[in-house]
């Protein structure tokens, strides 16, 4: 099966609409960034505490917001954890030791039974459960040693946390599936404990200093990676190719960050990893086309550079479509099934792969063409024979590529 045989689309002839589209997208992203005062950083980069909570049913966001505002006071943000199942992310400023506990207390006061003096099994650790059960179980006549009680509690905890319950039990009767949980144990559980309709899934607290550090690190890592690639491509091809590739990749990154801003999504460490991946992918695409251009130039047909680039893009078209399509498939799978933690990551890649594929053809290649046309024009005034100057250019590329032979 073949999608494309020998195609001959005039890609560069239609470059202007695409370049304008690129500029519009970039501008839209930048304007959105400007209006919102920069990207929306996650707590990784600005410091603060992020607690994710899973609810048994659709969480009553307004009620949660009210109670968190009441109990924690400082500018809490409550939002649905995108891609999660009844999950919420509660962002609070400040990263002191007990923010996690305060969020838990606030939620318990609204949804649990804080005054009953019972233990919330859905938010208790194994040792909490063991400590709570020890006395009553002994009093009720169950002959269990300390170790057996500890094991029982840790089995209950594991049963609650396995992936079919995701940390939330809805009734104590479910526990009868755990070995060692007799009706007697269940009746003690009922008497001593209760099940709240939510569970704390994770909590991240980042101090402002580390936040700033991580941000600087991420920017340095990206710039260095770009610089490294520029040097490598300049060494393997010609400096303008390196520059074209890096500008294209930069364009992809800006548009993707702009999309995050447009959709009001947070940028955290995993998104940075995604941005770097898309840098790699887009670069990959660009290099495949550049490689072809170099190869075609070496053959030395009398053809304008525009023609050579067009032909190269056409020759690599089915590869470009296949690879991008397949990668797109894996990334879409990640986006759909990867869960809430990878949501930002896969969103960045979904956007990035589309933009990255297109930028190789419509941003990187035109830059190389513009530069050579401009350089040629300069030479035309100096030396009137244009064809010769074209060969001179080709000569330098040929020389560059001979290094590896």
């Amino acid at each position, binding site marked *: 099966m073949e999608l494309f045989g020998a195609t001959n689309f005039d890609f560069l002839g239609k470059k202007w609409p695409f370049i304008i589209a690129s500029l519009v997208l970039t501008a839209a992203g930048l304007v959105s960034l400007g209006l919102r005062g920069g990207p929306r950083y996650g707590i990784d980069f600005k410091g603060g505490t992020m607690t994710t909570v899973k609810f048994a049913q659709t969480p009553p966001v307004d009620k949660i917001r009210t109670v968190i505002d009441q109990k924690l006071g400082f500018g809490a943000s409550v939002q649905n954890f995108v891609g999660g199942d009844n999950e919420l992310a509660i962002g609070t400023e400040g990263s002191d030791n007990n923010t996690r506990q305060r969020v838990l207390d606030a939620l318990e006061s609204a949804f649990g039974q804080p005054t009953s003096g019972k233990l919330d099994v859905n938010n208790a650790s194994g040792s909490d459960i063991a400590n709570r059960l020890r006395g009553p179980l002994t009093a009720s006549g169950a002959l269990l040693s300390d170790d057996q009680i500890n094991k029982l509690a840790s089995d209950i905890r594991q049963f609650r946390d396995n992936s079919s319950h*995701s940390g939330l039990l809805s009734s104590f009767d479910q526990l009868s599936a755990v070995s060692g949980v007799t009706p007697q144990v269940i009746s003690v559980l009922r008497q001593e404990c209760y099940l709240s309709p939510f569970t704390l899934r994770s909590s991240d607290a980042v101090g402002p*200093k580390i936040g700033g550090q991580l941000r600087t690190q991420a920017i340095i*890592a990206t710039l260095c990676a770009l610089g490294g*690639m520029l040097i490598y491509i300049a060494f393997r091809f010609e400096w303008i190719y390196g520059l074209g590739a890096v500008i294209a990749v930069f364009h992809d990154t800006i548009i993707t960050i702009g999309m995050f801003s447009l959709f009001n999504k947070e940028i955290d460490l995993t998104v940075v990893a995604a941005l770097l991946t898309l840098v790699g992918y887009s670069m990959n695409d660009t290099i495949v086309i550049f490689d072809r251009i170099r190869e075609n130039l070496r053959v030395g047909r009398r053809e304008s550079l525009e023609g050579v680039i067009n032909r190269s893009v056409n020759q690599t078209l089915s*590869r470009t479509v296949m690879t991008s399509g397949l990668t797109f498939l894996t990334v879409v799978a990640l986006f759909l*099934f990867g869960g809430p933690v990878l949501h930002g990551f896969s969103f960045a890649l979904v956007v990035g792969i589309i933009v990255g594929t297109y930028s190789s053809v419509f941003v990187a290649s035109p830059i190389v063409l513009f530069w050579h046309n401009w350089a040629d024009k300069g030479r035309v005034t100096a030396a009137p024979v244009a064809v010769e100057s074209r060969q001179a250019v080709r000569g330098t590329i040929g020389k560059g590529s001979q290094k590896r032979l």
Partner: protein
Amino acid sequence: MQRNLMVKTIVIVSTILLCIYGIIGIPKNKAELEYNIQRNIKLGLDLRGGSHLVLQVQVQDAVRTIADRTMDQLKNQAGKAGIEIGGTDRNNPDSIEQADSIQINVHGVPTAKSNQFRTLVGENFSQWILNPVSATDYKMTLKPTELIDIKRRTIEQSIQTISNRVNGLGLTEPVVQQRGRADADYEILVQLPGIDDPARVQQIIGEAAQLEIVEVKEGPFATQEAALQQKGGILPLNTRLVPWIQTQGTEWFLVSRSAVVTGEDVRSAKASQDEFRKWETDFTLSQEAAGRFENFTGSHINERLAVILDNQVRSVATIQSKISDSGRISNLSSQQEASDLALVMNSGSLPASIVYEERRTVGPSLGADSIKQGIIAGAAGLLAVVLVMLIYYKKSGLNAILALVLNTVILMAALSYFGATLTLPGIAGVILTIGMAVDSNVLIFERIREELRAGKAVMAAVDAGFSKAWWTIVDTHVTTIVSCLFLFLFGSGPVKGFAVTLVIGLFANVFTAVWVSKTIFDFELSGSKPVTALSI
């Protein structure tokens, strides 16, 4: 040609076997298989749940302590040498940046004895620089090399103490190590896998557990003000007020500033129950401290002693008789509190207080869900790729899929052999490696198709396809590896894990997509009948 192919096949098969061994070992039954996989593929904190903490050691505390000790010693030794010092005080650096500014001021040194005083400081306090401020006053600052040394020791001792405490919890593979630049960041990274009670662990790590047994001068007083009032507004020399917080209310005691026995003198501590079945922590003292304690209690019978933990009185007792080597902290609320306190006392005290810079906790249920989702996403992605490759490249697609699977196996085995951990971004790295691997195959196959279209014979087309795609593959891989290198150097945590898996995957890919795939083609084409058509 045939022999060459044979060698290649042997290399490939042995690589596969080595990799499979790396992942599953040699299992005898299903349980062992599962155990081996769990042991070899280490999951990161985000996948199996756990806590990740970054602590900053407040080194200025240690510097202040040293200044205090020096002031005591200076007064002591000057007194012995017959130099009457008017008084000493110090500044109070209260942030890490200010730690270097520590300064002791010495007032009222008699001018007649100034030479003697200089000699004393020069001989016995050589880590300090002495500068005269006036004829009778001096200031002392720490030498820069000494400052560096103090801070380094503080960090080392903190790491040691925290390690002791963490190890006492009996976790598997906890990490306690220095983080960032040693001479500027003063940070410690603590990773505790599988912990399901982060609050308790943080308390154990962060607790200074400064134990002191001190002489009670007066008390109890109902409030701090009442105590001060009785003393005419000024506390007597070398005393301090310490609270005793109890359920019925807080009382204050006036106690001696210096302790008879401190936490450093504790040889061992353990939890036990008193005669009323209340929990307590018993401790025994080292030999040297026991001697000191015995002398003190012998000469202070019928006076009172207070056990102070982190500047709070825990118990007050009247000395009935000489006590030598043991003591107890009573009235604890639970067995856990008693055993945690024993753990902390056994592990030594922290030389400086600690501030949490980063605390991440992933609950085990989220970790389990993430694994499930990661696997589903990976499988769905892989399945889609496999289907498209088979439809689009027919039999040659099979070739690519084989290379893909092998790539994933090598990647997993490499992670296992290097002892690297698989994190969520790492799984993302694996999925992207699959993408890159597909790309290499597509590049090669498209090239072969082109050559076939140009009318080349099958064998020649395959050879040309591989050799022409080779440099493109090298270029794309090297560029990505270059960028991963920087991610590894400058990135943190998750970004690093991602870079590691991607780099391993890329190297594996060059091997599988180019070398293995070519060998399979050669194998197909090496039959006795010349092949005239290729299923691609």
